[in-house]
Each structure stands twice: as structure tokens, then as C-alpha cells.
């Protein structure tokens, strides 16, 4: 993947709030609490904008200017750990949320989005790969 910073932000925003939202709603129904998963999705999005800026800076050290899917995955894990570490003090997150519940929801969202970025997104948006992940 060879994202620009704007491409990262746009991709994150659109995928989290389409495919990510669907997954989140499903987990909300399973957990009988839609609010907490949705709030977590919002935090992941907001923190993600900062994470993306960091990734973009680090990407500048790579001659190829690319960001392998492996990095994307590992970065996603780090993002999840941060959100879980802060979850107890973030407003809107139920104190009853367990690590298992959070991990199941978060990993599903992460993997679905990564899988979409590696393939199907290009099918629906054929210019996405030519523009560093930017839609607009």
C-alpha cells in the first residue's frame, strides 16, 4: 500500500464508517449494547487520524514510500491496545466491557477493513489505487 496522508485519512474514515459500522452494529446487537461499540469506533477513528500522521512520518523513511500490509496490521494492533488502555477513562464506554468483548469487536473490524483495502475496495473504486488511497 502506498498511501498519502490524505489517502490514509479518507480511507480510514470511509471504511470505518461503512464496513466498520456494519460490524460494530452486529457486535452491538450481540452485546445488547450498541452505544459502547459505536463509541469505541468513534475513538478509533479520532485517534486514528493522529496515528496516520505518525505512520506517514515513518513512511517518509522508506525509499519506496510504501506501507506494507503487515505494518498496517501491526499498527492496527497498537491502536487497539491504546484504545483498550484508555477505555476505562473514556466517556461513553461501558465499565462492564470486557477485554474479550473489546478484542473480538476490534479485531473483526481491523481484519475486515484490512481485507477490503487489499482487494475489494479497488473493485468499487478503481482510481483509489492510483491516488494513494484518496477518494476525493
Amino acid at each position: 500500500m502506498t498511501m498519502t496522508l490524505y489517502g490514509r485519512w479518507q480511507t480510514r474514515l470511509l471504511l470505518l464508517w461503512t464496513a466498520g459500522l456494519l460490524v460494530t452494529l452486529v457486535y452491538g446487537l450481540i452485546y445488547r449494547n450498541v452505544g459502547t461499540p459505536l463509541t469505541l469506533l468513534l475513538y478509533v477513528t479520532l485517534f486514528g487520524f493522529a496515528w496516520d500522521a505518525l505512520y506517514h512520518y515513518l513512511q517518509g523513511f522508506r525509499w519506496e514510500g510504501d506501507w506494507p500490509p503487515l505494518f498496517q496490521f501491526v499498527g492496527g494492533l497498537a491502536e487497539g491496545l491504546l484504545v483498550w488502555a484508555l477505555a476505562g477513562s473514556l466517556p461513553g464506554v461501558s465499565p462492564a466491557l470486557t477485554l474479550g468483548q473489546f478484542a473480538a469487536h476490534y479485531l473483526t473490524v481491523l481484519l475486515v477493513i484490512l481485507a477490503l483495502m487489499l482487494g475489494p475496495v479497488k473493485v468499487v473504486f478503481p482510481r483509489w489505487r492510483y491516488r494513494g488511497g484518496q477518494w476525493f
Partner: protein
Amino acid sequence: MHIKRAARSVGGALALAAALIGQPAAAQRGGAKLECSFDQPYLCVGRYVEVVDFNGRGLIGRVYGITVAGEGFNLDGHFIRGSARDQITILEQRTGEAVTLDLASLAALRDMGATPPPPAAQDASLDLLLLISAALLLVLVAVLLRQERTREARAQPAARDEEALRPVNWPTDSGVHSVSQADALAFLDREPPLPAVFSEAHVPAAALCETTLPIDDVTYLAIGGGMGSFAWADCLRVSGVAAAQIMVIGTTAHPYDVYRRLCHASQVSDDDRLRSDSGATPDNLWGWPGYALREAWRELQRGKAGAALALLWRVFAETALAEPYTPRAGDVFRAIDREAWRINWYAMRRAGLVQCLRKTDDGRYAAVYACYDGEVWSRRVALARYVHIATGCAGPRLLPELLDYRARTGDLVHAVHAYEDHDHVYARLAERGGTVLLRGRGITAATVLEKLAAARAHNPNVCVLHLMRTPLPDGVRVGRAARPVLHHWTLQPYNWPKSSFGGTWQARLERASTAERRCLLSALSGVTTPPRRAFAHLVTRGLREGWYQVYMGTLAHLDSENGMLLAGVRDLQGEPAALFAVDYLIDATGLDTEVSSSALLNDLVRHYALALNASGRLDVTGDFELTPMRNDGGRVFAAGAITAGGFYAPVDSFFGLQFAAQRSADALARLGAPDVRRLDGWRSFSQWLRWARGEQP
């Protein structure tokens, strides 16, 4: 073991081999005579070979013009899989002769999993994977796709019906012939001069009808029959244009013919891997599934889950923790064959060579071209409102020292270019040994070095002297990043940094001013070779053992004496420094993409005073349009190597050709060109489904 055969084709013979592989016990009994008949489940095109002979005696012959669709074999009859290629020879024989299959060949075939499955079965399994992979979106798409089809049917009933009636069975390219550019030029030389109207800036359309030249009236015209035209035609077809509206004029039969010939000459056979990304898929406008996923799926079908996972790991971790995945040449060519069939490429293509292109006074363009119909040459005019030029390279770039030497001696044996056929060099080196002077340090030079090392495995008296113009102790640095270097070889997975295909470098280059772009391109360009562990090990070992040596200098002159080449070399200060006696010179110095090397482009630039960019190539806009060629509503686009040096660096790549095609198709859609609809969203997805199912766009 000799087997009298009733197989009527290579496909039959291979099926016979496959049948025997499935019956090793019967094969080992030996002496059996099997009478079999086959109904040719596989494609055979080109020069028809009736019988093939497999044996284990080493490589004897090479080119056979046969093809078997499916796994294991490619258009030349070479095996495309496994390292056992050189252990198996395919010989051309006549009908009625015996097929000889020894046990070693059978074992090699079996090990390679070379049983060629019918194409239909392979496609079906691929489709299954694709459809499963897209399950998340399929539910939503089903209803919308039906609506889309209904709308399409309403919009273009005539065109769709006409295309639906066209035969879609293999082979689709039977009767398609390539022509020699030299023959076309010789024909044009024999023809009388063009009518005077062609010397005007705008040719009157009425005057064209008064000439004796037959006229072909189309909407879209692609000049050049290679990969650039293929990418453009593919994009137009997927965007809604019917095949009957598109004409492609080119000399080659298949879109990849020139590319493939250059690959073969530079020692990249069909079972070798290209220097190309998994997602650079000329047969697939969307880039997904990439070649890595397809290859992994095939490995999985063979029960090789480990190999499949290894391939997927490479695309997951490249370029940081794994060597970049690169597709096998044969896989790419087969995929292009499939897409060429799907978009009706062979109905669009005309065998010929364009002599000149002129604007007409009714907003169109007239291309005068030499046309070969399989029997006779004729000169015709193609009239079109939208033209695309992708004529590619003119041939190997022969440097002055080599040209001078050849002009003086006529020697084409000892001093060769890597993009010319030079197999004799490796054969003689393996037999007698010798010293080779190598120039260039790109991927082709690396491949040549590997081939020389392979010859050295047969004969330890092979030595390589690598002449480099400048030392490269460190890689170039731009911003926070630096390009790695190993023993003066610059390492980079592809011709350009990966993000210049569509990422940070590409965005920066597109935003940059002309002067800044020139600086950036200068920094990012350069001759590079992919970072591969095997190659790094080879160079390090060669330097350590002494059979591979690097000398910094430039070749000043070349002479011949007593069957040896005498290469006079200047040092870095330009002073005469050394005289090397070597057996061969191999120049791996690239291809000639100069505008001046093309008669058509030369004429175009002169006639319409076209501007060239800083690299001396055609100056195009962000839509790859040649703006000085605008003619009322008519537009001319260009792509490929002839536009190098512009805002998009990797124009001369599979990915770059698709990028250019997409940009020009978008421009045409904005312009309201007939039947070109912007490809996006559900329409894009529905077209992708058609691709996955192998249906016409």
C-alpha cells in the same frame, strides 16, 4: 519407452503425457504401446506442431509456436513452472512419428504438476474464489446489478446483440498474423508519395474521399498494437464502448509480443518472473485479484498450502520483511490472452503500420497506414475522432561504440546487446569458457550476470568484467529516505519507487513545477535492480572468488583481433586507462525510446510543432493528452515510453499504462465521447463481475 500415438495435436500429446503421469506403474512397465485419441481440449495457435518429444538430454531447440491453455505450458511450448525446464526438451516432429517419453521426463512432469487442466475448469475455480472473496458486497450488489444490466440493455441493444452473436470459443486469434515493421516500411517506400492534401495542417475530409485510398471510419483509433493500446482498448471496452467502434493498428499478433520477445532475448523466459508488482495486472483493470493471489490459489488447488501461504506472506510483508512478489511471465501472458479474448481484441486489431497522422477539417484525424490482410499489402486511411498513440520503444539502444564497431567489422556475434538474441554467447561460454565484458547495471544486466553464472557452473573458466561508468558507494537520498546500494548495484524492487506508481511520490511529482519535477525525476530515476537475496549472494560470491570483477570507466573503442575483442577503456577522468581482451561484449544498456527513432512520431512532431518534455519525449497533460493535437471535439492521447519524463514517472510499466488509460478514459467520459461512461462504484463492480465470469464487457 516408445508409444505410438494417435494424438492429433500438441494438446493431445501433452494429455497423453499427463495420462501416463497418472499411471506411473503402467509407465514403468515400459515397452507399452498405447493407441489413444484426443479431442483437443486445449488451444493450439500459431505454427501448428503435430507431435512433441520429451526427453532428458538437455536443451536442443526452443521456439515452436504452440500453446496449450492451462497450467504448465506457454505459447512457445516452454514449460513455465518449476526448475526442471532445462531438463525437458520439446522437439518438433512430423505427424506419424513417435512420441518418446522417458521416465525422467515423466517424473519431471509429474513433479512440476504439469497436467494441464482445461481452461474452463480453471476459470470456474478462479471465479469461485473471487465470488467468495467478494461475499461482503455481493448481497448489496445483486439488485443493483440487475438494474444496471437492464439499463445497459436499454441503452445499447444493437451493439450488445451484435457482440453476443460473435463466436467466443477458443481459439479466438486463429488467422491473426503479425507483420514485420521492415516489410511495412518497404511497402510504404514502394508506394507513390501521399496526395498533396496530407501536407496541410488540416486535411479536408472531402478531399480524402477523392483519393484512391480506402477509408476505415471508426470512433476510436489506437496506434500501436502493444500493451499500451491493449490497456486503452481494455479500459474503453469496460467503460462501455463496443469493439466495432475501436480499431487498433499494430504489427504484432498479440499485445505482448514485443514485450515477450524482449524478455526472451534478455534471458527472461516464460517461467521466469517479471519485475512487476502483483497488482499490476494488464488483464484486469482493477488490479484485483493480483497475480500473487491467483498463484496462491493455484498452489492451494494442488494441495500446496505452504507454498500458497508463502506467496501471500510476500505480498503481505513486501517490501519490508519479504522480497517483493513478482509474477511469472507466462502467467501474465496467459491472463492477457484471456482478456484479449474477452474484449474481442482480435476483432479490433488490424495488422499494419501507421505512416502519418493528420487532423481533418471536420474535427477528426486521418491515419494513413500500411495494412496487411494476410496476403497483400495495401495503403489505407483510418478516420477517427479519438486517437491513442502508444508505439513503445524502437528497439535496443545501441551505444555509439557498439554501432561503430559493427559498422567497421559487421561482427554481430562477439559484441551483442542484451535485448538481441544472444543465446549463442552462453552456449559457447559453457562449452569453451571465456571472458565477458558487461555494460549496464539494471535488471537486464543482473539477469545477464545470473545467466553467465549459470554458464560458469558448466565451465569454471567463465569470467565477467563489469564496466561501470561511476562508482556508487551510497544510494541517492531524498528527504528522509535513501536508496540502498550493494557493490555499486542500486537496489530497488521496481523501475521506480513503489509510491511513484500511486502514492506520495506520485502526488508530489504531479504537484511539482516543471523545474522541481525535473530534479525529482533525476533523483528518483536511475538504473536499478531488485533486492534479491540470491542475486546479492551471487555478486558477493563472484567478487570474493574473483570471477566477477568491477571496473570503473567508460568504453572508448572496440576492436577485433584474432577472434578476441579489444576494449579500450577510459578511467573516471576520461584518460585512456586499460585495454581489455575479452571474448564477448554484452551491452545491457536499455531500449531506444527516442522520438527521433520513430518515423511516425518524427513526422507528427514536425508537422504540428509538438513540444517535447525535458526528457525529449512527447509532452502530455494529466489526462495524457497531446493538447496541440486538439481538433475541435477530436482528441489525441499518448502513453507509454514515448511520454516518459512527464508528471507520471512509471509510464512504461503495466501499472503506468493502465493509469494512463484510466486518465484518458475519464477525460473522454467528461468530454461526452460516444458510449464512454465513467467507471465507478456499482458500474465498476458489475464490470468486474463480468471479468470474473469471463463475459464480454
